[in-house]
């Protein structure tokens, strides 16, 4: 499988980007040339230079250092939000597919209802009256993006339920919880994994949009989205505040998408090339 993944240069590029981001996030304190929250009123809105490689912001803070720390935020948001949505989606999906009947109907109708709402509207509505803390954002993104995984797991479990090994497990008197956890879910993991990686990209985009609108990660904590917010008001004089964080978001999302799509091509035999 690894060999087939490596055969696609785009997937490799995605994997490299993702690994690099992990490294940057982990090593931010050592990589950052300045303290990300140190201001310096003598050097406000300075363009990229030897001293400040990516320039400084309106408070004289080093943009490069803030971006490096921002990588931590986007990574954290991406993974925690997706962790929450995957946990909810897998639980509800497995229960729905395994038990069927009225339980299945209720859960699936609920999924239908949730899918009708423009997700971003729901997120905005809830975030607005919670404090815009990074934890709230992760929870809300997680709570509004589990439906795809839920449907996926349900479909897998539904088809697995009739298989011989499941019937055998039942005949042996195995408890439903054990049948789901030990036998059904492990067989449904591959597509969930792909959905999770693509989900990280989505969550990062949502976080940056929220931060850009001013209701996401709050300053002084640096996030790529909130650096961009300042960039918006100073676009005419300080392009570096807008261009670099945008590129960072783009490359990150691109990395996760490329990796996710590459994995999907390998894991989903239906899409195999002729």
């Amino acid at each position, binding site marked *: 499988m690894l060999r087939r993944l490596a055969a696609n240069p785009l997937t490799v590029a995605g994997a490299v980007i993702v690994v690099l981001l992990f490294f940057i996030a982990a090593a931010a304190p050592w990589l950052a040339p300045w303290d990300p929250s140190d201001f310096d009123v003598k050097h406000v809105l300075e363009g990229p230079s030897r001293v400040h490689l990516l320039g400084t912001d309106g408070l004289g803070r080093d943009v490069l250092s803030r971006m490096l720390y921002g990588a931590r935020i986007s990574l954290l948001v991406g993974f925690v939000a997706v962790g929450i949505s995957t946990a909810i989606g897998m639980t509800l999906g497995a229960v729905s597919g395994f038990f069927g009947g009225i339980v299945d109907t209720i859960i699936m109708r609920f999924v239908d209802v949730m899918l009708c*709402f423009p997700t971003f509207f729901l997120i905005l509505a809830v975030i607005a009256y919670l404090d815009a803390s990074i934890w709230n954002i992760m929870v809300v993104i997680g709570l509004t993006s589990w439906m795809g995984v839920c449907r996926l797991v349900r479909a897998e479990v539904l088809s697995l339920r009739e298989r011989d090994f499941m019937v055998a497990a039942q005949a042996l008197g195995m408890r439903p919880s054990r049948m789901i956890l030990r036998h059904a879910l492990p067989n449904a993991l591959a597509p969930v994994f792909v959905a999770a990686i693509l989900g990280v990209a989505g969550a990062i985009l949502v976080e940056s949009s929220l931060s850009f609108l001013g209701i996401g990660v709050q300053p002084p904590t640096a996030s790529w989205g909130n650096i961009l917010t300042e960039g918006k008001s100073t676009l005419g004089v300080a392009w570096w505040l807008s261009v670099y964080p945008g590129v960072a978001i783009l490359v990150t999302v691109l990395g996760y998408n490329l990796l996710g799509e590459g994995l999907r091509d390998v894991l989903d035999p239906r899409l195999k090339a002729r």
Partner: protein
Amino acid sequence: MLSYLAKRLAGFVPLLLGISFVSFMVMALAPGNPVDLMTDMNPKASPESRIQLEKYYGLDRPIHVQYGLWLNRIVHGDLGTSFSRDRRPVLDKILEALPITLMLNAIELALILALAIPIGIYSAARQYSFGDRVTTVLLFVGFAMPSFWLALLAMTLFGVHLDLLPISGLRSLDYDSMTTLGKVGDRLAHLALPIGASVVTGLAGMSRYMRSSMLEVLRQDYVQTARAKGLSERVVLLRHALRNALLPVVTLLGMSIPGLIGGSAISETIFAIPGMGRLFFTGVMARDYPVVMGILLFGAVLTLLGNLLADMLYIVVDPRLRKR
């Protein structure tokens, strides 16, 4: 078709109930009650008027009764009045903003389709060619691009540096004094940036989907038959394959509606376009609960209708489904 429609509409009832319940709960769970918010802004509000307001919203009742009362009101077309200073009915505000958002999204969708279908056909017909790889990479980049960032850059480039296009609103100040042709031109100029930014970021999903749908169809026996008959590749692609490959795209159209509406919150806010998205965002920021609940409801119902429309279109374009 009619019986199908009736069946579908009947199936909407529980969905609509669910939608209304979620919209209600989102706001009911919010800390602080709306009367506090209204009276906080207005120091002159007397305790009596507070009680009156609480009665009006039924806030002195248990929550399930509140939901019932609210549901009863919205069924009768009363979404309440906005908490904002103008105190206008929410329904009026929404109906004013809705056509703008619908127009924007319809144009966007039309442009996306007009670009995505040819791209998808090309990429599938020449799978793994140089052109396919280049478009794939470009589409991925477009897909990964934060739409607000692209909007920001486009505004700076075309609006500020080149001074070619207006960057906010839907019309110029002297709109009323323009000729008809001038008005059309003015409108198009105002739409260019918001729509352009959304199309670039929205194109990828549809194109990739079209490509895989086309690849799937090209693998079918009837395509092989068509080729074996000696038909030209052009006819095989455009007449035999394309028509079948378009079917799943119809379903995707219906599913893409909530995303489009959700995205309008960002683009309309950036470009100061008075549509649903901006109305929602300003409503959220001002904690204007009636507006927020009303738009949540409207957005979900629009999606429902969009899906129904897509499914019916599916029946129209796929003869196999007609008999059932």
